[in-house]
């Protein structure tokens, strides 16, 4: 540990003022657990004790980052959901601040046996892809999003039954949307003005996960990429769905009779049960009238953590990272949101006019802490690219080279080392990429959404990478 710190110090000194270096070390000591103080407080019993070694920040530059962001951060768990402690990451995220008093160590307290991430994990096989100077391994990487799970995940469908479901766009328009929420009504990152994407579901490799979907209208959750069995696949015609009918009633058509468990209809939870075999990045979405329901916002990301729930690598023995982001790529065709009831003439052709990242578009993305990357020089950043939309997307990090570590929940067979500066992500694909934070400055990134012919750029979602 000492040697690692020394090495890191040597690296850091090369391009950072001393005070920053000191803070970086402090951050390392505090295991990279960034978060808003108020949120950390809400974690209550989940929070680890105050680190007596934590040294208050000194540099005025850092002090600037204390400005609280205008984020509605919601504890997805709340108190009405006693049987499901979602093992919160760090809701709200935001830039690392020097004031938060509690290094959080969100250990799930759900009844399922889980192993908390070890304080000082030694990677089984520190992959050759970590070209950065030797970093002391963080106990837990900083997240910029909150999660539901592991264990039991309670989800509500929120759709045309609630006319208040709108997504506030950058141009001031409010589009009617549908989505999935936690039992307390929160979607991705707990922002009430952002129904889609839905909350992040988290599962641990090898552990039983149950997703209980409540809905007043036929919907399903398809566990995209998890290769679950037919009964849990979330396809109405083959797996059943939350039916409008009592499945035991005479005359119920066959697809509606395929119900798991029996008796799941209209507001009773429909349970999806699976054991995720491979750590990685996955998606979920409604598979009822998919072309419309998915576009309306009924989709989100599933993260399968390595066995035991470790949050410092994508898979057991994979490269160690310091901070992780999810970039969920999607678009809206606003005409589809006008009077959506079912697919047909209204969904004849898809012409997106809003180009989004994590539910935000335009300049809203730049001020969104889930999308705009902020970290210290040399830190290893993982971005999980998830294409929830219908357009192929060309992602570039403003010239910062990155590795592709995994795709569709599987490590790549050979590692690309800093080989890529842009990556095409097709609809339904996921790519987990990692890069080293530049020495300084702000780098502008872009996601170019291509037409489905792959010829024209239809629109762009711009974000940024800022070295603190």
């Amino acid at each position: 540990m000492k040697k690692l710190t020394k090495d890191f110090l040597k690296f850091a000194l090369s391009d950072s003022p001393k005070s920053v270096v000191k803070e970086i070390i402090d951050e390392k000591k505090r295991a990279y657990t960034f978060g808003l103080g108020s949120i950390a407080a809400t974690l209550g019993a989940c929070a680890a004790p105050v680190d007596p070694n934590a040294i208050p920040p000194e540099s005025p530059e850092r002090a600037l980052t204390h400005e609280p962001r205008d984020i509605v951060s919601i504890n997805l768990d709340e108190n009405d959901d006693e049987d499901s402690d979602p093992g919160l990451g760090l809701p709200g995220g935001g830039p690392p601040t020097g004031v938060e008093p509690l290094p959080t160590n969100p250990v799930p307290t759900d009844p399922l046996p889980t192993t908390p991430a070890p304080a000082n994990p030694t990677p089984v096989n520190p992959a050759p892809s970590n070209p950065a100077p030797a970093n002391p391994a963080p106990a837990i990487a900083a997240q910029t999003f909150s999660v539901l799970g592991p264990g039991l995940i309670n989800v509500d469908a929120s759709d045309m039954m609630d006319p208040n479901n709108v997504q506030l766009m950058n141009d001031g328009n409010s589009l009617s949307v549908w989505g999935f929420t936690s039992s307390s009504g929160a979607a991705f990152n707990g922002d009430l003005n952002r129904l889609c994407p839905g909350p992040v579901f988290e599962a641990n490799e090898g552990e039983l996960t149950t997703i209980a979907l409540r809905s007043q209208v036929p919907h399903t959750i398809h566990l995209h990429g998890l290769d679950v069995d037919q009964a849990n696949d979330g396809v109405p015609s083959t797996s059943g769905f939350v039916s409008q009918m009592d499945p035991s009633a005479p005359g119920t058509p066959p697809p509606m009779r395929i119900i798991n468990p029996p008796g799941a209809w209209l507001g009773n939870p429909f349970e999806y049960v699976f054991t995720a075999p491979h750590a990685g990045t996955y998606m979920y979405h409604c598979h009822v009238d998919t072309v419309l329901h998915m576009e309306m916002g009924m989709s989100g990301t599933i993260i399968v953590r390595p066995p035991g729930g470790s949050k410092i690598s994508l898979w057991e023995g994979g490269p160690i990272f310091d901070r992780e982001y999810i970039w969920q790529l999607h678009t809206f065709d606003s005409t589809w949101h006008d009077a959506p009831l079912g697919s047909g003439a209204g969904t004849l052709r898809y012409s997106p006019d809003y180009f989004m990242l994590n539910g935000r578009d335009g300049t809203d993305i730049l001020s969104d802490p889930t999308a705009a990357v902020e970290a210290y020089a040399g830190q290893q950043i993982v971005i999980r690219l998830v294409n929830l939309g219908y357009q192929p997307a060309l992602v570039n990090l403003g010239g910062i080279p990155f590795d592709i570590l995994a795709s569709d929940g599987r490590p790549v067979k050979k590692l690309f080392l800093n080989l890529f500066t842009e990556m095409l992500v097709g609809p339904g694909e996921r790519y987990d990429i990692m890069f080293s934070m530049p020495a300084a400055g702000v780098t502008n990134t872009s996601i170019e959404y291509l037409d489905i012919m792959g010829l024209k750029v239809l629109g762009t979602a711009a974000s940024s990478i800022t070295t603190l």
Partner: protein
Amino acid sequence: MDRRKFLKAGVAGLSGSFVLGGLSAGFPRNAQAANVVIDFTVEEVMKTVPINREILTWQYVNAFQAGPGALSSGIVVTEGDNVTINIRNNLTSNYPVNLIIPGLLETSAAVIPGGTQSYTFIASTPGSYLYYDDNNGQLGRAMGLMGPLVVKPMDGSQALTPFESNPNIYDREYTIVTHEIDSRINDAVAAGLPFDLNNYQPDYFFANGLSYPETVQDPAGNIDDTKVIFMSLGQNVALRFINGGLIYYPMHFHGYHVNVVTRNRILEEYIVEKDTVLIKVGEAVDTILAVGNQIGLYPLHTHYVPGVTTSGFYAGGGLLMLKAV
């Protein structure tokens, strides 16, 4: 018009040879290079799409070897074969056409309506290929002038990559040609009116010329084992995706990941194991699905979900089904 009536090919017409049909039939495997002659005519075919709509298409038609589904003719030859394709252009409007095969026949002379032309090439490398008309730019494929060509290895093995140390032997194989129609283009061509391919936005989508539920069900609405991608536990199933359309097809597998073996006959060494395989325009991507121990019915479809519709209605398009028993 008589000709069109004669060649009317509904969705149920030639569809007995759905996924595999036409590609496996015919040419016997042999270890000797052979001279193979294929006679194509380019025809105007009124294609019936759901629901009871007829759209003018152009197709390469081989009277003796129907292609998969109801669209175009398939070709299966053996590595080393000396292949001659004779073309007669029977289009009634003034469109000269040709036939190219990226990887085997990069350029070819156009043939005017009423004319004939011969193209010859050696099937030098095993793998999956797309053939299509490029004399009319994108219009040829928009109208349906394309089809699949599979070159089997010379040694007679069921190998996707006989040139590699891991030959990727399969137990079953399926060839899936993706394409789509923007009916506004076809209607304009039929009426002799101007059209705009820059505004290409298809409304009909196909796998091997068929749309769901014809891709999966018999007329009575039951799952048809001769139409689904039928797999037995423990088998290796080769799926050859050949994109004859003008849009990307990110093909998503339910229930199973697949291994991407080659893209345009080049070994994929990096991003191999996928549940969503992006097939770009003109690409041929060979994959192998190792059927584990999970039985069931699992959809296989483009995740450009508008491609799972027919004229806007879900579910339709080129939705396929895997059936593992």
